């Protein structure tokens, strides 16, 4: 039984924040820690954990409410919990005098203890931290005025005297001293401070592995280490480093800093600082320094890495633009926005030119437009790649990014025009997909693009269906043409042509359009002489309301084949027309029978006296064939019937088929039920 599941792969775990045995992922960033809490039995029932496990394994969106994530984040603000997380697997917490830091310490602490940042060893002997007056003179925050003065004198033998005197002045003047203290290592013992400076000089990045340091001291050390970042560092590592810094800045406690500084001042004999206001001023300056330090490091990276590092940092720390970023990240993005403005403007201009080019070329057809749309996709993607950190940031801040909106709208407008004016569905879909991909951070744009994509997809489906239906209809039409087309010659010496096709049915000189044929009859008569069979005559007759063509055949194959074609070409239509006329309430005469939709009028044959007409419903009659005729008779009275010759009476076959078909339908009351 597990009591938590991995935030990454959904596998069961026996501890909330431990490494997953299945995928080896360990929750590190605040978002991962918060998610891990939700995915534990502390916040979810076993059944819910099973559901979430399935969702993770199936790459589905987790189904819990954001409120639970907020609750987890709130829990992660607990100072003691933060301190424990900071300690991680390291049992001792070194020299920290810090109160457990607020929430922003969390990613810093976890990432430093577990991160896989660049292990390349690099020394650092020059940094802003090295120019701090404490570092210049080699004095500690607990040294008194006399020691500082003496040390300044001594150092002036090896360093520039002005530098030493300036450092002395800054450390002995209580007001100036504060700036030096804030930018030094407040809260650390002199011994620990010395150790860390040595570590910085030996391997700057090893500072990132140090845990349990007071936040400000840690920040100042990390800022120094940031000065060692070079183009050899990966963008992911720099992004992680930026997040560490940002979270630390966010978690700084002015009260704690004031306490740390005053503790040292009480030892060194300098007057204590009474309020936090002065510290706030110095801290604001420090934050500017941190931002500039990071900017400097980013500018040392290749352009692509710079963009990647910014994007990764903003993406991870805002959970894809879902939560507010720390102040330092916002400041960095603002700087980034200013510095990338020219590039973005130029790329945006290129995008617009391409949009116009596509629009102008649309009349030339899709073959001309498609490559230009391809080029537009490339340029717009380039633009978006650089704009990505800004888009994520504005999303996290809940504001619009006007340049993105403008470009998205212009691309959408082109997509709409390409479809509406030129019927270029594929290109329109391609551009809509581009908008969905590039502007995923802009909710309104995405919503509209999603609607467009759905609409275009529906249109595409409809077009597909129409095309399929047309193809199917054409195929059926072709098959029907093949099925009914037949032509043969009849006769031994003088041959006459019997033919049927979509153009009509013809015998000798008589031709009837298929739709004009209103009567058919056929049959065969066997002949014999003195009981000896002498052959069979096959008769087929067809005609319109005015004339009739009668074909006499000797060959059964011709008779059968032609009837098969005639049935499909003519009789099926006649059957349908018969049912429709009956449904319309008409009465149709077949020989002596009068056919209605709900029944038939038969003849009661009397031995003496005149025959009588008897009206029967369909439930009262039955049918049979005998002696070349089709009989319809009353079930109750065998003298009540009509007989219709197949070969002589027109449309007897049609009537027989209609009645036979209808009788097969259970509960039939009307012949026109066949139309339903």
């Amino acid at each position: 039984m597990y009591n938590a599941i991995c935030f990454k792969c959904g596998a069961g775990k026996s501890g909330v924040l431990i490494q997953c045995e299945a995928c080896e992922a360990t929750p590190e960033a605040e978002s991962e820690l918060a998610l891990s809490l939700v995915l534990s039995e502390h916040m979810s029932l076993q059944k819910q954990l099973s559901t979430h496990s399935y969702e993770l394994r199936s790459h589905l969106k987790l189904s819990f409410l954001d409120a639970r994530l907020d609750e987890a984040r709130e829990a992660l603000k607990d100072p003691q919990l933060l301190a424990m997380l900071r300690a991680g697997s390291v049992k001792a917490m070194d020299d920290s005098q810090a109160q457990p830091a607020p929430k922003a310490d969390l990613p810093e602490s976890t990432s430093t203890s577990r991160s896989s940042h660049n292990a390349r060893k690099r020394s650092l002997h020059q940094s802003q931290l090295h120019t701090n007056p404490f570092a210049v003179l080699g004095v500690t925050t607990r040294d008194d005025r006399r020691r500082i003065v003496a040390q300044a004198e001594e150092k002036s033998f090896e360093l520039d005297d002005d530098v030493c005197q300036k450092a002395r002045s800054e450390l002995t003047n209580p007001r100036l001293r504060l700036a030096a203290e804030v930018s030094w290592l407040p809260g650390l013992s002199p011994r620990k401070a010395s150790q860390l400076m040595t570590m910085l000089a030996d391997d700057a990045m090893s500072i990132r592995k140090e845990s349990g340091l007071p936040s400000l001291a840690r920040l100042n050390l990390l800022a120094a280490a940031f000065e060692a970042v070079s183009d050899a560092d990966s963008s992911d590592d720099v992004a992680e480093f930026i997040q560490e810094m940002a979270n630390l800045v966010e978690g700084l406690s002015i009260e704690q800093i004031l306490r740390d500084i005053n503790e040292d001042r009480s030892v060194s004999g300098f007057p204590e600082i009474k309020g936090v206001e002065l510290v706030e001023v110095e801290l604001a300056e420090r934050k500017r320094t941190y931002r500039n330090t990071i900017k400097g490091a980013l500018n040392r990276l290749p352009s692509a890495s710079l963009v990647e590092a910014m994007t990764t940092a903003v993406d991870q720390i805002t959970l894809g633009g879902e939560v507010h970023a720390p102040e330092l990240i916002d400041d960095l993005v603002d700087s980034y926005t200013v510095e990338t403005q020219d590039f973005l403007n130029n790329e945006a201009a290129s995008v617009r030119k391409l949009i116009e080019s596509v629009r102008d070329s649309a009349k030339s057809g899709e073959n001309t437009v498609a490559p230009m749309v391809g080029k537009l996709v490339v340029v717009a993607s380039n633009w978006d790649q650089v704009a990505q950190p800004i888009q994520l940031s504005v999303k996290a801040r809940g504001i619009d990014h006007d340049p993105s909106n403008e470009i998205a709208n212009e691309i959408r407008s082109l997509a709409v025009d390409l479809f509406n004016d030129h019927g270029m569905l594929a290109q329109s879909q391609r551009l809509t997909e581009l908008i969905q991909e590039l502007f995923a951070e802009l909710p309104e744009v995405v919503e509209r693009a999603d609607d467009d994509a759905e609409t275009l997809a529906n249109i595409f489906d409809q077009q597909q269906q129409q095309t399929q239906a047309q193809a199917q209809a054409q195929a059926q039409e072709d098959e029907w043409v093949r099925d009914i087309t037949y032509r043969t010659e009849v006769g031994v010496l003088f041959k006459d042509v019997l033919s049927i096709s979509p153009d009509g049915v013809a015998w000798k000189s008589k031709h009837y359009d298929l739709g004009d044929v209103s009567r058919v009859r056929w049959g065969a008569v066997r002949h014999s002489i003195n009981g000896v069979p002498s052959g069979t005559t096959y008769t087929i007759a067809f005609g319109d309301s005015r004339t009739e063509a009668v074909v006499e055949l000797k060959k059964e194959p011709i008779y059968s084949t032609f009837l098969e074609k005639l049935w499909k070409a003519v009789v099926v239509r006649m059957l349908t027309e018969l049912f429709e006329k009956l449904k319309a309430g008409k009465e149709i005469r077949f020989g002596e029978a009068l056919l209605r939709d709900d029944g038939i009028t038969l003849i009661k044959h009397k031995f003496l006296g005149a025959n009588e007409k008897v009206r029967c419903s369909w439930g009262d009659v039955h049918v049979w064939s005998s002696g070349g005729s089709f009989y319809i008779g009353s079930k109750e009275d065998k003298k009540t019937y009509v007989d219709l010759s197949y070969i002589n009476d027109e449309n007897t076959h049609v009537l027989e088929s209609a009645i036979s078909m209808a009788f097969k339908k259970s509960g039939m009351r009307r012949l026109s039920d066949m139309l339903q």
Partner: protein
Amino acid sequence: MGFFSKLFGGNEGDRALREAFEQIERILEDEQFQLDMIHPAMKAIIESRPAYDQDPNGVGPFGFSETNPIPVNGPIGQLAYLSKLETASGERILFHRIGSVDTIDVFEAVTFSGSEWFILFLDFYHPRRSRITPDGFRFTQEIGQFSGFHKFCPNFPYDFIEMKGSEGESGLSLAYIAISKVSDGIQSRVYDRPLAHKVKLDLLKSRVTSYLM
């Protein structure tokens, strides 16, 4: 009149009873007596260690970090110290020992009302207990009768009454707080660990050496 007179209503008529009261007073207050109650070997180790209010090399928040534990005089000193703590809002705490990280004992504590939960770290290898309190705490003006245990309570704090009963053999049961003072919270089932606290326990689970949960 001493505070025990206040506690027990000043009844000094019964000599045997007074001797019992004095015995309780020694258990609660007398640091040397508390040391005398433990094994001589352990006592010798403890007496060899420095006496101070806070480890000068300690790092991290006092009492809340294993690297800056509260120095106290042996296991009975732990009970005495923790039983004298109250929060800034004047609430005393119930506590039990959930294990140790190396030589540092880890205690889980909760206010009588259940409003706040704590993890506290104590180091009992010192001849006297600290005279200072962790941030957010102060020493109570009440009699510091024991309100917790130097052992793990499986159903903390709902099993307080049973655990108190089990202290009969230790000779400490007389020094424990009256059941009536904690029974309200227990009967009302007010003790519900907050999420952050649960996670802390989860983190400690892998680190304490004698964790019994």
